[in-house]
């Protein structure tokens, strides 16, 4: 049992009223614990789609097959951009904890832009695959690939909207050092989406068929 008291950053409600940190029984703030729980749940959501993809690998009755459409160098670049956005996310959190609001705004915006670059790459990739004849309906590869990566893309998009919302608050000066946990929690989500992509990229693109 984790009953010991741990120094914790101020939680949302209390930071707004400008008071000291509340004590929770575990020492982890409520919102952060809730985000960890949500992410653990989301793992199983992606897990189901990744399992479906693996289960149906090489069982497509018709082409195009993965090796016909994949452009690994291109996807590697967009994946790299998404990974770098995790770095800028960390820099944004470090900035707000220092009270450096100018850099906070820069890094939040950079993270959102990197994410948007990734989504742009995904849109390009989907269009390209569609031109080559791969659709949701065409074969099992198309069904499992588009739904899995599409849902991941939806997660990234939600993250971008979240980051831009935080950036908007920061631009109005309404995101201050006391709110650093808000950035931290958005960061947890963002890193999670990144980690899921590492798994998808490895399982879906890199493992040879």
């Amino acid at each position, binding site marked *: 049992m984790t009953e010991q008291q741990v120094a914790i950053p101020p939680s949302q*409600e209390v930071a707004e009223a400008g008071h000291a940190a509340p004590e929770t*029984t575990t020492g982890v703030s409520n919102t952060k614990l809730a985000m960890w*729980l949500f992410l653990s*749940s989301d793992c199983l959501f992606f897990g189901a789609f990744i399992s479906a993809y693996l*289960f*149906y690998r090489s069982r497509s009755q018709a082409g195009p097959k993965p090796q016909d459409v994949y452009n690994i160098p291109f996807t590697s670049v967009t994946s790299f951009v998404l990974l770098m956005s995790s770095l800028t996310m960390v820099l944004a959190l470090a900035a707000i904890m220092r009270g450096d609001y100018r850099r906070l705004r820069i890094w939040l915006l950079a993270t959102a832009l990197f994410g948007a670059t990734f989504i742009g790459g995904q849109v390009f990739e989907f269009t390209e695959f569609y031109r080559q004849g791969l659709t949701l*309906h065409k074969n*099992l590869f198309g069904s*499992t690939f588009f739904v899995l990566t599409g849902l991941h893309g939806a997660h990234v998009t939600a993250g971008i909207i979240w980051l831009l919302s935080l950036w908007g608050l920061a631009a109005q000066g309404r995101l201050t050092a006391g709110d650093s946990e808000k950035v931290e929690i958005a960061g947890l989500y963002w890193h999670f989406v990144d980690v899921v992509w590492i798994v998808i990229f490895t399982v879906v693109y890199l493992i040879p068929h």
Partner: protein
Amino acid sequence: MTTVQDVVRAPARRLGVLRRPQATTGFWSWFTTIDHKKIGIMYATTAVTFLVIGGVEALLLRLQLAGPNGNLMTAAQYNELFTMHGTTMVFLMGMPLAVGVANYLIPLQIGARDVAFPRLNAFGYWGFLMGGLFIYSSFFIGGSAPNGGWFGYTPLTSTPLDRGFLPGHGPDFWAVGLIMLGIASTTSAINFIVTILNLRAPGMTLMRMPVFTWMMLVTAFLTLFAMPIITAALIMVYFDRNFGTNFFQPAAGGDPLLYQHLFWLFGHPEVYILILPGMGIVSEILPVFSRKPLFGYAVVVFSGIAIGFIGWGVWAHHMFATGLGPVAISAFGLSTMVIAVPTGVKIFNWLATVYRGAVRLKTAMLFALGFIAMFTLGGLSGVLHSVVPADTQQTDTYFVVAHFHYVLFGGLVFALFGGFYYWFPKLYGRFLDERLGQVNFWTMLIGFNLTFFPMHFVGLLGMPRRTYRYDSGLGWDFMNLLETIGAFIIAFSVLVFLVNAIVSRRRGTPSGHDPWDARTLEWSTPSPPPMYNFAEIPQVESRDDYWHHKYTEDESGHAVRLPSGAAVAVEERTAGGGDDGHGDGHGEGHGIHMPSPSYFPFILALGLPVLGYAAVFQLIWLVPLGALPLLFGMYAWAIEPQTE
């Protein structure tokens, strides 16, 4: 935990979009409330309404089957009714009713003033209500209610509408509606876990928590990990039907069994999501009405946790007839036998709790004892299913119907009714009538067994499930008639309960705050509890803390009531009954800042069914209409301070 609420509020910054609702009473306050007790009552009332609706569906099914060659309804109508009966009882009655009871009780049992996320809690309720109304609206629009069974096996449900085996939009409503309900129950699961882990009163260590709270913690984790799996499966079904994907289309190489794996990987933990709250409730009732502590508290708790873990490794016993191969079925047969062990351990613990206790056979206790007996019968027929050859014989017969009604009705529903009689005085400060309660219990016990026990026999005689009529001369006629009569006795019993609840709420015998001489913290506050629950957050020193404030032991181990002065002092301390004397102004709840009511959980939830209709009928223009309340609610919620 006292520091959060005790802080003197700084002048509020205006951040809300709408003027903050203030009222905590009156009709409209129900739409804005974030009080866990009110939300608990809303959950329970709505779920009992769905219990009645699902019950009426069951009665219609039983009327159709009362005799051979029934002609009350068509096969299509029968399909809709049994699908909606199952869907209602699992997702709209069982889960939310347990969530409602837990909503009311968990903060009171752990010495907290509310749940960790009061507005998210309200959203969970509204999401559940919207999801339920959404699914039921399919009776009026869309050509057909869900008609592919509560399990929605593919490719029956996943085949697109134009090539459809199933008429109408029923399976779309079913898939989209269950996704909505999944969102709602995931938020409530997260809320419960954070509340239980983080908001416990000082001294309320995990192993001092009441067993009901413990079981809800396990249940919440199961919900958290089970719902995303069915959500994924439902998305695949929805895409197969509407966007031409091939997840479960055998012609394109898709495998319908993948759906069964995903569904039961959710579906079996779901069984424990339904039964663990019931186990928690009887673990509260039995000690109080036996005047003994729960026998083997730690073992009961760890058995619950063990069930939570092993529950993930038994799903394929729902699929023994699908040809999984000898290794898989042997493994799952064994794991199914293993999970019976912690369940059996619990049953012996409950029996040992009652053994040589000063038993008071109040209605709550009768239902708890009824639970043990009926659930054990259901458990025994369950173990039979771990024997694969027997299971293969029984698959899709009425034997299975008998089994799961014994565990879910004889288990969960009996426990819930016991919980109603036990905690009703806490909610309203009045008893449910005992005489009506006895009628309620005995008619339910008789009606239940009359309905479901013969199903074992007709099942073994080969009567298949989900069939809408049967010929005479198969030896099923008399037992089916008995089952129908039993179903109406159950209906009478539920009616007695409803009358009892409605009458007793206003005119029942006043109960005082601790009518059962109970053991746990919720009874240390007034009945009904004030909005802030505890005037002063209690200091917990032991398991069954409240009991130990009332009683001590003499040399021979018998309970001796402490001098009344001490007990009154306890009640003052915990219930705020004193005129003050604390010097901190908390004697009557002054200076306690509770979260303020909010419109936004309701507004946010309003967006869900609109998006649902957009998805079912593929209406693009409806998407912005649904996204608007969703986004507005979300942003307004985010910038609105929790307390104002």
